């Protein structure tokens, strides 16, 4: 049987690992260096079709053929997954990033999907030094001659450990800095409106 002294000693001994746990569950750790800022390019964009392809028109035409065939042979089935005569393939999206006039990266982002007909996901993160930088991005979604690329250019101040995200606004149809980095309720304008 444990006596009172042992109970007190026991609790003290059990407190030691507990204090160890308390200390090492929250230790300030400098993971990111102060002399770093990050520029992220993050958006989804569909490249243009490699060949012009009227998807609805094609479906209508096939449905018409199907109806005609159905009149002749009642057991025929409409096969929507059969290989189509016209390709649905899209061009990859090419993004070139210039920082202070120097090309940092030029990269093609392939469209998703088995037939390469879906959206291209553009994501890359670049560590840059804090300070004022001239950022220029040229995005091309077609390899056809005469395609006008999307261009973004801005001189912007990067603070220490600041993250800026360049995204593509589908409504405005242009590249711009993302403002969707903080939940609405925590944004200063919301907080001010509340007060």
């Amino acid at each position, binding site marked *: 049987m444990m006596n009172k002294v042992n109970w007190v000693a026991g609790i003290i001994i059990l407190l030691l690992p507990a204090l160890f746990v308390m200390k090492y569950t929250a230790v*300030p750790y400098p993971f990111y260096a102060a002399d770093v800022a990050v520029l992220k390019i993050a958006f989804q964009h569909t490249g243009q079709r490699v060949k012009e392809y009227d998807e609805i028109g094609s479906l209508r035409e096939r449905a018409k053929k199907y109806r005609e065939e159905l009149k002749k042979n009642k057991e025929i089935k409409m096969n929507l997954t059969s290989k189509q005569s016209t390709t649905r393939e899209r061009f990859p999206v090419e993004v070139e990033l210039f920082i202070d006039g120097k090309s940092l990266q030029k990269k093609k982002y392939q469209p998703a999907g088995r037939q390469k007909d879906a959206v291209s996901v553009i994501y890359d993160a670049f560590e840059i030094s804090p300070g004022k930088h001239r950022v220029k991005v040229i995005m091309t979604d077609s390899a056809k001659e005469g395609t006008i690329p999307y261009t973004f250019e801005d001189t912007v101040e990067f603070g220490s450990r600041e993250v800026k995200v360049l995204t593509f606004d589908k409504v405005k149809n242009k590249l711009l800095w993302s403002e969707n980095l903080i939940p609405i309720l925590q944004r200063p304008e919301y907080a001010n409106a509340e007060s």
Partner: protein
Amino acid sequence: MEQGMIMQKLHRWWSWLEFDMNKIFTPRLNPMYWFGSICFFMTWILVATGIYLFLFYDISARTAYQSVEYLTHDQWYLGGLLRSLHRYASAGLVLATVLHTIHVFVTGRYRYWRWIAWVTGVATIWFLIVCGLFGYMMVWDELALFITWVSALLLDNLPIFSKPLSFAYAQMPSNFFFYIILFIHFATPVFLLILFMLHVIRMRNAKINPPKELMYAIVAVLVIVSLIRPAVSGPPADLSKLPATVQFDWFYMFFLPLLQMIPVWAVWVVLVVVSFFITFVPWYGKSRKKAPAEVIYENCTGCEQCVKDCPYEAVFVRPRSDGRNWPLEAVVDKSRCASCGICVGACDYKAIDLPFLTEADIKQKILTISKTVMASGDTGTKVFVFMCENSNPAGICHKVECKTSVGCLRLPCMGMVQPSMMAIPLLEGFDGVLVSGCQVNDCHYRYGNVHLVARVKGERKPVMRKNIDQERIRFYLSSEVQKTDFLSEIDAFREELRQKKNAEKGGN
């Protein structure tokens, strides 16, 4: 230094620590014998506190942080306290798991028939870490954002996702993200419980809960720590900033600093190599597994006592295959058999034996030793000592035998001793029998010491003959580092027996 030597030293240091802790806690409550059960207990605390926290948690990017803040500050007396308990119990779980692993490793209790427990234990650690990291993400503060980013960075390095996960967390994630976090944080404990079940699947009467007193003490200590330093959130997640410092939880994030030192793919290599290395520890080195127990079918009555006593569920019964009268017969699963001999101690019918040390061998040895001691002509009080190999190093038997009038026999486990074996030296003229085995709650084969004590007390079959004077039997349960005390214990026991004998003579 040879590997075996290092292990022996580690074992001795650990045993010394246990010995010192026994002085304070008593062997019954010594937490060093209960690390595995403490892991279970911490899990129950986590489940209970987690359910309450979930009731107030808002699953949305907009309000997740606020809901946790509400619990922490507005409801500090309950929600805040439970959040702190949840945090500290989760770290305590990792600590207890690590200590349990060290205990198992230094005592060599991870090889052969124990491999399932070891492998599931290693898997448990990784599930635990995943569960913990996702728990931190739920708060959606600076630390959560950091964990989300680095986890995405790690996972993007594997060719399993069609689009980079980092893309999803470059801007404010949708509510769907929080549902995924919640799902993983809830699903991993389910896998953990399955792993826990597999961990103890080959153990009969696995100790799931520590003693009540220890549970109360653990809760008290966790509450004290929660009140001293309540768990709080950092600033809300802000995707436009890399946090200057993150409040690192070293119990769950110990491997993340590797990302600062080596490329992401190399971090994976390190994690996979280390995990595999640890997982396959039971198969390293030369196998010294002894031959498994064998059933002697002509004697087996199918009484199932060996099934009840086997600590690793290596013995089971099946319908009789040899046409004898009894309906059942025992079978030994060789892969699970620890060759501890507990089944031999449990069998009153000479129906199960270790091939390298049969019941007949043991009884013959007892007789031979007894006759040798008796023939020595010494008139002192005579004691026969049964020793378990695991708590008594080989040299100690020699030291014991140096004492005149003492016979000594080492066996794989105390549980191998049958009460009828203990009766032999007493009938041959010894004054007493001393059985030295592993400490309470720390039997190398789990229950050998407990079973023998129960047999002698008449609480477990096969029971001790009633005409044997129980006062002439003494148990000395200790770890190997207590052997100096053991030698004096023999002397003290002999002195007691001598006085008893004198008193009896005087009475007559």
